[in-house]
């Protein structure tokens, strides 16, 4: 596990350094678009006007000074498929954002939805040396948790302690300073394919950027689209992206499950293109302008010209009714939602006290989805949009930017992860050395 500690800690340090320098870039590597936001950290005091509500959960610490989106190339299912193409797309997005921000960024925090994320629940338990829980005890209990066999070529992306139990009391958020005999913890660990992460790192390195953090887009979309009480009481966020639909379950402000369905908006477009025999670009346009999932009687009369440039007059002058389009789109959307439902069932979502489901991501903007989704996912469904953060352009406030905005929040206020705690004392040769290191870390 030390390897994991080191890479993740290196990223964490880089993130800290970037924030100290004041500028960090957010890169959402998606299947249909790559979004790049540049955050400027001015410190919370500069935006703290008057007394009263303080830092707005860390949002006031930063503002977006550059934003750019580009059509992504060479990415399938949220994974890098053609490295050179992806590199070009990243360059386009980063350069445009830099141009807007008038600042050069070196550090980037990225998220992606591919890599087949898998969730694991870990549990650890220790006897306390003293009766009072200290930070070292937390490190020890985290280290004592048994890591399951994640399989070959899997990397840990998130490993967040989600629950602590002290003797018979469970559900503690922060047991430090409390008194007890046995400390137990639950950790949620998310693994992804090593190759996907490595490809991303390599791609960013080719763009002269350094990866200062990486997050799952399911997690990022969840922290931006779920409101606070939803995160607290339990909710699932379904980020319907282009190539993959990722879902994350939150309770007590912790992500406890994340998964990804390798289906998304691109498949809907593909269906339209294949069904109507039109180019993908036209299909995408028809989908966004006329698409829907619930047909009404009026849709039979609304004719859509779908044209093409084959030179055959009969083919080029085709028209379809909107009902036909809906007839193509709906099965695919239903399939996606049913797949999500099965993943949620597999995760035991029905046992949660609150079963709110939030749909977000670009695909959630299909008209009629709010009618269709409750039939499959249950009654408590809403379409979510990401939080507003300061300086975000209007064009980047839509649901398709949920994970980008979530990454901003993640950059400003990362949740405690396993590697944020010290390696347990046994790993060090001497206690004094560890104390010295700790002193340095605390004071520098």
């Amino acid at each position: 596990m030390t390897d994991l500690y080191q890479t993740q800690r290196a990223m964490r340090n880089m993130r800290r350094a970037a924030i100290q320098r004041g500028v960090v870039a957010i890169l959402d590597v998606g299947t249909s678009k790559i979004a790049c936001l540049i955050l400027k950290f001015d410190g919370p005091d500069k935006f703290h006007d008057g007394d009263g509500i303080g830092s707005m959960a860390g949002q006031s610490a930063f503002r977006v000074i550059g934003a750019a989106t580009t059509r992504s190339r060479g990415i399938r299912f949220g994974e890098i498929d053609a490295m050179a193409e992806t590199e070009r797309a990243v360059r386009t997005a980063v350069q445009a954002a830099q141009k807007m921000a008038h600042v050069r960024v070196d550090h980037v925090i990225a998220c992606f939805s591919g890599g087949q994320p898998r969730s694991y629940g870990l549990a650890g338990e220790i006897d306390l040396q003293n009766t009072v829980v200290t930070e070292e005890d937390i490190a020890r209990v985290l280290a004592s948790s048994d890591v399951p066999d994640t399989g070959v070529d899997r990397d840990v992306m998130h490993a967040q302690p989600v629950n602590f139990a002290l003797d018979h009391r469970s559900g503690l958020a922060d047991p430090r300073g409390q008194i007890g005999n046995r400390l137990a913890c639950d950790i949620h660990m998310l693994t992804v394919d090593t190759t996907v992460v490595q490809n991303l790192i390599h791609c960013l390195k080719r763009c002269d950027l350094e990866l200062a953090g990486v997050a799952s887009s399911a997690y990022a979309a969840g922290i931006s689209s779920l409101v606070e009480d939803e995160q607290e009481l339990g909710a699932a966020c379904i980020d319907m992206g282009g190539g993959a639909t990722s879902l994350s379950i939150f309770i007590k402000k912790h992500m406890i499950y994340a998964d990804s369905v390798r289906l998304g908006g691109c498949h809907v477009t593909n269906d339209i293109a294949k069904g109507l025999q039109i180019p993908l670009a036209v299909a995408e346009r028809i989908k966004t302008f006329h698409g829907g999932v619930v047909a009404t009687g009026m849709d039979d009369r609304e004719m859509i010209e779908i044209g093409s440039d084959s030179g055959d007059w009969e083919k080029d002058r085709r028209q379809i009714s909107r009902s036909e389009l809906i007839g193509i789109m709906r099965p695919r959307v239903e399939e996606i939602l049913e797949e999500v439902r099965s993943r949620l069932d597999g995760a035991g979502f029905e046992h949660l006290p609150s079963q709110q489901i939030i749909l977000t991501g670009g695909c959630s903007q299909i008209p009629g989805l709010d009618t269709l989704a409750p039939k499959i996912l249950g009654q408590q469904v809403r379409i979510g949009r990401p939080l507003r953060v300061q300086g975000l352009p209007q064009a980047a406030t839509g649901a398709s930017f949920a994970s980008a905005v979530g990454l901003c929040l993640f950059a400003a206020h990362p949740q405690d992860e396993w590697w944020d705690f010290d390696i347990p004392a046994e790993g060090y040769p001497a206690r004094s050395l560890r104390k010295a290191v700790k002193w340095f870390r605390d004071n520098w």
Partner: protein
Amino acid sequence: MRQVAPRRDPAPSRAAYRLHRLWLTPIFRALLRIGVPTFVFVFSAGAYLSDPENRVELAETVIDLRRSIQERPEFMVQMLAIDGASTDVADDIHEVLAVDFPISSFDLDLIAMRQAVEGLDAVAEAELRIRPGGILNIEVAERQPVAVWRSRQGLDLVDAEGQRVAELHARSERSDLPLIAGQGASDRVAEALAIFAAAEPIADRIRGLLRVGERRWTVVLDRGQQIHLPERDPIAALEQVIALDHAQDLLARDISVVDMRNVRRPTVRINSAALDGLRQVRSVHEGGVVR
């Protein structure tokens, strides 16, 4: 249906991307904005000046430029105008200054010229000014001679402060001025003038004042008479003598010296003829033998 092409969104080449990032680097921009122009300027200036010919040429150009500005007609001084000086003094000033007009006003050192003019004996104070129209104006306050001083070097005119004003060839040229003589007399001209003022009743008889031993005055009258005045309060002593003269015609008698050096004991020196007469009178009165 309008044909839909994907939005044109060309990716920058790797070089363009790196250049753009380099351009956004603050230190690079600062270098380009300040460093490069500075370097180019310093380097080119250095390269130009490394050739001695160029240096000479540059210096000449600078001097020429300077001269061309200095010799503009606005700055040229055409003539000298002297106010408040007599012809002799004006001639002296012309001689001392020795400026050949026209000359640029940048080349005139007015302070030095003023010192030179004030160095003249006859000039008490001088004010130099370049007036518009290219005229160097000198306003001179001449020293006013108040006495003639006869010294070993000859006759000089002195002003009230004892400063030498001009040389005098003959006493008769300025017979209106009182004469003083003796070493150190010029230092006490004011006192001498006060004595002359006090001696107004016998003014027609005074020949002059003699400074003796640089400490006291002697009034020299005609007929070889002298009045020795004390060092302290000479005027009172003189007035005493004048009062005596007034009462008893002291000075009309045949005496050579009225010695007032000791004010409490005025002494009179009688001439030998008068002395003989006095003895005769005494012998007649006393019936003594005349020797």
